[in-house]
């Protein structure tokens, strides 16, 4: 019961923020961005792979959302509308730029560095896995991530991306197959 009330309060608060943003209030826009920026960066990184491209995409998506905010019904949840916009913007960018995939620079990421316990084989698996991940089509990569890491169902993913469940399953099947091959490679 409390959870439902909290959700309703949150929705009412968000509705008010959207109405204020429609009126051009900077503080309201700041609060709206603050509420979604972490998740947006996470989704964008999965989609773009390159951290700088991902942050550019997040900025682009928020600015697009602001431009189209009048067409958004404040009585509905902002999140699904915004993330659909972000994903579509990301896919557009891929199409237009024909992104040259670069090896992700991960020197600053402690968790992906080989630990002293990781031997050369583990490092090689990691390298191949990252390469396979970068090779996946952006939408496919995002779908595999949302399914395997976020634990979303195919139905939830389909709804969030605005595609059919069949499409999600198709991408999931092919994406998982490619990544599993990369993981299994060095075990032979």
């Amino acid at each position, binding site marked *: 019961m409390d959870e439902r009330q909290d959700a309703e309060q949150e929705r009412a608060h968000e509705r008010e923020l959207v109405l204020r943003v429609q009126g*051009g*209030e900077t503080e309201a826009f700041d609060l709206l961005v603050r509420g979604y*920026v972490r998740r947006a960066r996470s989704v964008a990184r999965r989609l773009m792979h390159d951290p700088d491209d991902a942050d550019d995409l997040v900025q682009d998506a928020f600015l697009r959302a602001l431009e189209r905010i009048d067409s958004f019904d404040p009585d509905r949840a902002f999140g699904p509308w915004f993330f659909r916009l972000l994903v579509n913007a990301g896919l557009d960018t891929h199409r237009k730029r024909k992104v040259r995939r670069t090896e992700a620079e*991960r020197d600053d990421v402690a*968790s992906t560095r080989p630990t002293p316990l990781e031997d050369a084989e583990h490092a090689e698996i990691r390298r191949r896995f990252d390469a396979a991940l970068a090779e996946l089509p952006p939408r496919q990569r995002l779908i595999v*991530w949302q399914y*395997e890491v976020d634990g979303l169902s195919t139905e939830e993913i389909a709804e969030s991306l605005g595609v059919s469940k069949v499409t999600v399953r198709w991408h999931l099947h092919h994406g*998982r197959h490619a990544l599993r091959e990369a993981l299994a490679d060095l075990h032979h």
Partner: protein
Amino acid sequence: MTRHPFEDPARDPRLGEALRRSETPLSPEGDDAVRARIVWEARGRLAARRTAPRGRPWWSWMADWSRVALPMGLAASVAAGALVLRTPVDDGSGAEAGVELSLGDAGAGADTVAMSYVLLTGTTADGEIGAADHVLGTGDGAWLLNDPTTTSR
């Protein structure tokens, strides 16, 4: 235990772990920097919103109209339904008879039970074989008005 073909496939823990490890951790400082950049870039657009006169958004028109349109549509549907049920039909005898549907009509209920029996068994309640012919009937459509529980050979 077999999985239903329409069920989501089982999650792969090894794949999930590999994905998690390849994900670049996001820092709150990074979030703040991106947020500040977005708000800075948006300030011109926000200022334009504050000064520009705002028209009514499309969804507010929809919301207003639905208050009137929905009851009107419902009322029209009910009226149309009542008219259809009360439309006179030609029974073939030359006289017009009003067809009226009445839920507590015992005669109609008995006919329905008798018809169901004929359809299920091919006989009447009295065991008369060939009664199902009444169901197939003649091409002129008169069979629709015949009593299926009596034979008229």
